[in-house]
């Protein structure tokens, strides 16, 4: 049976892909199909517009989610879906790449949007390249057409008006995998989620020492915002946790205000902040690329500018 298949690690992400999938399914006149880890979620996906849900049997303790690749490949070979959309988490990206290799088909990684070409039934998909400097439009010349899509790229599919109609089908268990999970350590969850913050202050390499991060934190406090950083500040200097670095390979944020403190504005970073409503940049190098991406640019030494800015904000915001 043809269809638009959606698969993601989490329920919210699955509902977002289902929203994208329903649009495609309507235009192509086929059914949206989802994957669920249990019947409870399967019924929820049916209530949100899936017309069929495959239930994946549980995994062995030493198996990762990637162990489902052979199961998905077998199902796709039998059912011949038109389109497969996979949530672009790390595991999802690996699974999509391996699935596309098994099915010998094309895969648009990190698709940011698409249109359906009604005549050919092809998805014309957009994605970023060159660290975000370019937008590439691609079509998949083979079937199934595949794409990975990041979380929050689409709104979750709304619940349908009528009761859940559709079928729930169990899939066969995943075969044993050559890669064995030996140990899992959950990430120490920081209490903040920078993607939810309305105001984000970002620490860049212009901050000279770890103690000076406090300056940016004080600014964030004055603004009532959260602290984030560029990739090297988290990965090379390790001044801030990795879950708060922004960029094409890190968190993508859409706050009402982004403030870059000593951020140079490499394109990989700018890609993570481009959806901010207002961008303010502070940098002493007037040629820093961040100023091209900013609404307001203060050219000056952050060690002078930030304390004045904090003072001004305190004066202004207390009224």
């Amino acid at each position, binding site marked *: 049976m043809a269809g638009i298949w959606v698969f993601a690690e989490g329920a919210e992400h699955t509902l977002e892909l289902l929203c994208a999938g329903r649009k495609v399914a309507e235009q192509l006149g086929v059914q949206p199909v989802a994957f669920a880890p249990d019947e409870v979620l399967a019924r929820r996906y049916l209530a949100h517009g899936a017309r069929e849900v495959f239930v994946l049997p549980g995994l062995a303790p030493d198996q990762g989610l990637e162990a489902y690749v052979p199961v998905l490949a077998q199902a796709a070979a039998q059912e011949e879906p038109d389109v497969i959309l996979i949530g672009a988490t790390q595991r999802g990206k690996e699974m999509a*790449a391996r699935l596309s290799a098994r099915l010998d088909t094309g*895969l648009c990684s990190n698709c940011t949007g698409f249109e359906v070409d009604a005549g050919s039934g092809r998805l014309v998909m957009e994605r970023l390249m060159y660290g975000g400097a*370019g937008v590439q439009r*691609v079509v998949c010349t083979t079937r199934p057409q595949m794409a990975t899509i990041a979380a929050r790229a689409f709104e979750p599919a709304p619940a349908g008006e009528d009761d859940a109609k559709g079928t729930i089908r169990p899939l066969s268990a995943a075969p044993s995998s050559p*890669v064995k999970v030996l140990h899992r350590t959950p990430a120490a969850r920081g209490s903040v989620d920078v993607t939810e913050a309305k105001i984000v202050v970002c620490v860049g390499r212009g901050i000279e020492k770890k103690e000076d991060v406090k300056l940016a934190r004080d600014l964030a406090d004055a603004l009532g915002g959260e602290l984030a950083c560029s990739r090297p500040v988290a990965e090379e200097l390790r001044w801030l946790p990795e879950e708060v670095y922004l960029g094409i390979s890190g968190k993508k944020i859409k706050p009402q205000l982004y403030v870059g403190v000593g951020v140079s504005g490499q*394109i990989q970073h700018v890609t993570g902040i481009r959806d901010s409503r207002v961008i303010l940049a502070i940098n002493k190098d007037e040629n820093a690329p961040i100023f091209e991406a900013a609404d307001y640019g203060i050219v000056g030494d952050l060690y002078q500018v930030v304390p004045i800015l904090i003072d001004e904000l305190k004066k202004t915001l207390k009224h």
Partner: protein
Amino acid sequence: MLKVIACFKWVIDEADIRVDAPNRKLLLDRAAFKISPYDRNAVEEAMRLQEQHGASVTAVTVAPASAKNCLKDVLSRGPDRAVFVNDPSFADLEPARTTGLLAAAIGSSVEFDLILCGEGSSDLYTQQVGPALAEKLGIACATYVNKLTYVEGENRVIAERKLEEGIEVVSVPLPGLITVLPDINTPRIPSLKQVLGAAKKPVEQLTPERLGSMPAERLKTMGVVAATMERKRLRFGAGAEDIRSVVDALLKEGAIG
């Protein structure tokens, strides 16, 4: 002896890309090329395995015939030899073709126990080629690895994957493939001696004719335009007056307050 392959890609340096904003065009003509940064981590990790376990290291790339500068660059970073899969038509290959060519080249000409790839390339960043290559070669793989240990005598590696939800430690049987994150190591700068020695190292040239295969295109690029952003781009000085104007403007926009 452990036989390691490090895959690498010769990419446009995105820092050199200029934008013709009114026409939404990317100007690439003056851009220099470089080894994709994450692939340098893959090469460095291969050299670390050589130092610890006496592994042989082969660097493999798929590139246009004109990209031969990549060979000296990669060989100066330590590998014993390089395999250069090239053809004048190999510019801007989509990931399925790159994967197919790598699989054909490695399958026909390079013995290996372990393949190392970067997590993605800095130009396309599809993050597909590593895991897809493992699938084409029918070997195990682990992605997003930030710590790698070869277990001598047991024909396997222990890999720490850094994932959204935390660290996952996996055992990967060899032959296998690992994609590495940038924080797995710090690539060393080649010494003058290494740079001079690079030209003397063996390079195997492979062409589609010699491989007898040319994978078909699965993903067709319809166009590339410059990403645009509507921004005010207003500049201010560092004085208190200027900073107050910025705060006022932010208030007016409803960005603060």
